[in-house]
């Protein structure tokens, strides 16, 4: 069975919102969000705590009523056709969305029964899922005795029990150790490979980088940037050249040469032998940047300046986020260079 069968005749986007608004008192938690998410992809909502990611997801999952704007999931209005939406989506919330007093098996059987499976079929499906998620041994234990990684697994197992067309994963790896995090990523990839659309919220930039095909950067209830990873990165420049010299005395010369060769501003790092320059600003053309960088290195060599270390990298999503929000207080992303702020306003 393919995803097109599952989603019926619907060929439009999995999610489409226009001017979505949710207010809590005086706070506009979601302040006019427009999204268009194609079916069969992983879409990342990236933003710091309190950006409005969870509120957006809860509206799309029919758990919260929007105060303004519209949202459609597979063409169904989330307010007027909430039941049709519920039939196709599944939610893994920020906190374990399973009953902690029940065992792993009981949780899955409960949900299987609630989605209409007969008794025997429910137990079969629960056993299959527990097996696939490596939880067979823990099947008879109450979920409250599970480790963080196991909870996430049973949670996602519960979410895909009825093979949803759209899966909401709200910060699926918050609080997990790196190994469990990797395992969750593997699960997400396996689920998407079967044709399920995933809307992922995260405050971890590398998570969005790892999983999402397209990303919306959300801050203060608004989408401040949207695009593929490449587009987002390109929007803050193709990359940065980092150079470390052997001799600190030659840095002024190196700075001049690099500025000429790259045609870009050169940043003097706190480290007296280090320089950073942005190349190919505003252009997604990485090859041109590499070419310019190699020419610049040749210039340095010709001037007799010894280079100890050199790197050319695409900007990380950290840099993208900083450039877009203009703030350097994002918890997961220590600022890397002082130029980002200026670029954001430029």
């Amino acid at each position: 069975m393919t995803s097109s069968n599952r989603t019926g005749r619907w060929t439009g986007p999995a999610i489409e919102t226009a001017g979505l608004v949710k207010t809590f008192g005086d706070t506009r938690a979601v302040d006019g969000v427009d999204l268009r998410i194609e079916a069969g992809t992983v879409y990342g909502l990236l933003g710091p705590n309190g950006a409005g990611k969870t509120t957006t997801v809860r509206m799309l999952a029919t758990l919260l009523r929007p105060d303004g704007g519209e949202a459609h999931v597979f063409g169904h209005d989330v307010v007027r056709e909430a039941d049709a939406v519920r039939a196709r989506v599944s939610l893994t919330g920020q906190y374990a969305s399973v009953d902690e007093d029940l065992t792993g098996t009981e949780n899955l059987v409960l949900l299987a029964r609630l989605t209409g499976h007969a008794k025997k079929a429910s137990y079969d499906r629960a056993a299959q899922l527990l097996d696939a998620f490596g939880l067979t041994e823990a099947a008879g234990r109450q979920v409250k005795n599970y480790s963080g990684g196991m909870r996430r697994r049973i949670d996602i197992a519960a979410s895909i029990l009825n093979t949803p067309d759209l899966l909401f994963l709200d910060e699926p790896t918050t609080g997990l150790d790196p190994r469990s995090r990797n395992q969750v990523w593997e699960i997400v990839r396996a689920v998407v490979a079967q044709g399920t659309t995933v809307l992922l919220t995260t405050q971890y930039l590398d998570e969005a980088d790892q999983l999402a095909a397209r990303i919306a950067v959300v801050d203060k209830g608004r989408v401040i940037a949207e695009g593929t990873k490449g587009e987002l990165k390109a929007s803050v420049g193709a990359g940065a050249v980092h150079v470390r010299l052997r001799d600190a005395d030659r840095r002024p010369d190196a700075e001049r040469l690099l500025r000429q060769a790259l045609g870009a501003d050169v940043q003097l790092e706190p480290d007296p032998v280090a320089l950073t320059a942005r190349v190919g600003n505003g252009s997604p053309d990485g090859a041109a940047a590499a070419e310019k960088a190699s020419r610049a290195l040749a210039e340095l060599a010709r001037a007799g300046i010894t280079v100890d270390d050199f790197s050319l990298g695409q900007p990380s999503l950290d840099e993208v986020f900083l450039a877009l929000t203009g703030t350097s207080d994002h918890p997961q992303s220590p600022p890397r260079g002082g130029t980002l702020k200026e670029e954001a306003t430029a």
Partner: protein
Amino acid sequence: MSTATQPTGATDGADLAPVRADSLAAILVSGERPPRPNALQASLTFGWRAVLKIKHVPEQLFDVTAFPIMLVLMYTYLFGGALAGSPREYIQYLLPGILVMSVVMITMYTGVSVNVDIAKGVFDRFRSLPIWRPSTLVGYLLGDALRYTIASVVMLTVGMVMGFRPDGGVQGVVAGVLLLIVFSFAFSWVWTMFGLLLRTEKSVMGVSMMILFPLTFLSDIFVRPETMPGWLQAFVNNNPVTHLASAVRGLMDGSWPAAQIAWSLGWAGLLIVVFGPVTMRLYNRK
């Protein structure tokens, strides 16, 4: 996928078996969606959940066993001699009433458990399922009906040991208990409403007690209303708990108090009609 887990250290994921992509894929592909369950099936499934919770945390049955036993013993021996000549005489009148009182008081725990549960993520999952909306709450009430039954059996057993001899026989007693459970099921919707409305478990308890104490004490459970002042009689005689206690007492006594039964069922219907929709509105808005 299978490379995701290599048990090397004492990290969280290390002791877990790897996730198996192939079987995961098979499950997702084979995932046929059966027709959604009807209202009754969904409610019964949630009732099953409530029973499982009792199974895992049997201590929570304390309030339907020890508490009612304490009430029977306390009131029978405390008031029995003074009010009816002897505890044995008094228990013939008191037991059906004290049974009503205990079970009606236990209904407040429905509100408490809804309130505790609602804060947890699992409620979001239930609310995002395409099922009959009230079934989650009806499930609680079905589980609670089981608790009310347990409480009734415990109290009747203790009562029989103490000398309670109902003239209505098994039939009358069963009919009385059934009426009590139907009423309590309806009455619980008041507490599900407060469970959703109030912020903490403690405030649910507080409000419940404020309502339950006057409602159960200002009734004909302990004494006949004839000696009360007129204004109090007016309240007592129109208190739903009085109607219910009279009906249950009558049924267990072997008579057929049609008017009181009708009143009890009428109150039950009214409670559901008023508080059911209010609860569901709150549930949908939560």
